[in-house]
């Protein structure tokens, strides 16, 4: 599978009050086509700087960044990328429909069904009814939806999102997650940052932990949680209630917390009793592992 995005030994430092701050310290990672890559880290860890160097908004970095094989310094490399910032600043004197048409023009995309295409994306984000209202009259959540529609309307190969679900209500979050999953199914790659680890677990195939400008690890959520936990929650069916069961979910369906070492013997026992497994999940959440890693790094708070 070819790479959508590749960072090779990328470093960027700032000088603040005479002191040098390493915003990015020798970062290397890659995102494959069709992959959803989440970037997680505390405030000031370097998440937004990573996006800014990727998009060449900050261009004086060390190392190499390539987007679909093209140098990120080359403006044409952004032809396949669309970006949604954390707090989208959209021309407030325009309407959502005009903003989407503007995006098509800036990407040099000409379509005979321009209006229909833009309305389709506004409908996808449930803002078609506001298509002709000025942006300044929309709520923060709706502006966020316009920003997402503005990114999707150009049908990018790689979608770059900075905190994509912030500012959205639960319905909006669900809609956006569904759209992102559809986008992934259609072959798109996503790079996103988030503070909300539950979102990362839901969306990302793989993610990177960044802290103090250093990439601590890149793993899949399941890999990381499995590595940092030796306990599992097992849901199972049984004809009779087993001894010391943790929780009865409903008649004949139970949940048990079991350590990795106990697991083989426990499974044999369940099999002998005629029960069967519904599912097994790690007992530790991504969030607790995140805190654990940050604790190991000497970081106490997010």
């Amino acid at each position: 599978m070819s790479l959508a995005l590749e960072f090779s030994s990328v470093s960027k430092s700032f000088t603040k009050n005479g002191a040098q701050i390493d915003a990015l310290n020798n970062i290397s990672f890659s995102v494959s086509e069709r992959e959803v890559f989440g970037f997680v880290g505390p405030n000031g860890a370097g998440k937004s700087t990573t996006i800014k160097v990727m998009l060449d908004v900050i261009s004086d970095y060390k190392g190499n960044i390539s987007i679909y094989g093209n140098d990120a310094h080359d403006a044409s490399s952004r032809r396949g990328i669309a970006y949604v910032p954390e707090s989208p600043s959209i021309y407030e004197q325009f309407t959502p429909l005009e903003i989407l048409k503007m995006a098509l023009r800036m990407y040099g995309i000409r379509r005979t069904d321009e209006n229909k295409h833009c309305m389709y994306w506004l409908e996808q984000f449930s803002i078609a009814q506001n298509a002709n209202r000025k942006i300044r009259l929309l709520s923060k959540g709706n502006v966020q939806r316009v920003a997402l529609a503005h990114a999707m309307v150009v049908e990018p190969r790689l979608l770059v999102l900075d905190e994509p679900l912030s500012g959205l209500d639960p319905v909006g979050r669900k809609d956006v997650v569904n759209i992102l999953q559809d986008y992934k199914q259609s072959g798109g790659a996503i790079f996103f940052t988030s503070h909300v680890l539950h979102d990362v677990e839901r969306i990302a195939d793989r993610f990177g932990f960044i802290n103090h400008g250093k990439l601590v690890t890149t793993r899949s959520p399941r890999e990381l949680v499995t590595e940092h936990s030796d306990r599992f929650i097992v849901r199972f069916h049984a004809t009779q209630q087993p001894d010391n069961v943790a929780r009865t979910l409903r008649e004949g369906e139970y949940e048990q917390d079991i350590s990795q070492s106990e697991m083989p013997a426990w499974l044999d026992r369940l099999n002998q009793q005629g029960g069967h497994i519904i599912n097994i999940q790690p007992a530790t959440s991504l969030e607790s592992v995140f805190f654990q890693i940050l604790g190991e790094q000497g970081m106490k708070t997010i």
Partner: protein
Amino acid sequence: MQIISDYKIALNIAYRARFLTIGFWLLLVLVTVVLIAAQFSGRQPATVALDIGISATRLLLPLLIVLLVQELFTREFDRRYILASMTYPRPRHHFFLGRLLAIFTCTMAGLVVMAVAIAILVTIIGQNYHQATPVSLGTHYIITLIFIAIDLSTIIAVSAFLSLIATTPSFILIGSFGFLIVARSYSTIIALLEQKHALVAKQQLYHDSLGFLGYILPDLGALDVRMTALYNSINFIPDNWPFIAISSLAYGLFFIGLALAILHKKQFN
């Protein structure tokens, strides 16, 4: 050409920012000033009306330029629209040149509208009194306007450059009008000091100091050739007009080049 997209968007932004209304109010100020000025001269009302009309145009259009620069550049940085603008798949200079072209278009459109309004007013005012030296609203007037266009182009370039280095919006207003006043007046003051030695105590010092400005500023004062139109004579155009016009345009191009270099190096941290 992709730069056309930037240009059209910039024009659209200017339109949405009510620059047509602003232009209408500036035109109204011009018409009022011209009509009032014509009342002060019984013998040459058309000449005075044209003179004041040109002066008002040369003051009002730089104001329009500053407002446009603030809308299309400064506001872009202040409202952080620039972060989205810079992520589009096109080089940074497209953004700058597209907007610069839009400002140029709006300014030149303003110049044409004001020039037509002045011409109509002067014609109407001139009908009531036959002057011994009639004004020229033909070729000489067009030549005067072309020189004003060169003057305004230089101001657009300097003002756009200032917007990239400015830390406050007022800096563009102060910087642009500061540049305009000094560049348009220093050669006139030098000429005055040369003619009237007793005008100031340290005449030579003043003369040398102002003379230094000639090395760092274009002589925009020399681009004011309104006497050609006022007195219907081509003799008022300075002999070295090609040098003056080219040096002013070159000065503007230098600042556009400098602005592009700054924008290219600019880090949006």
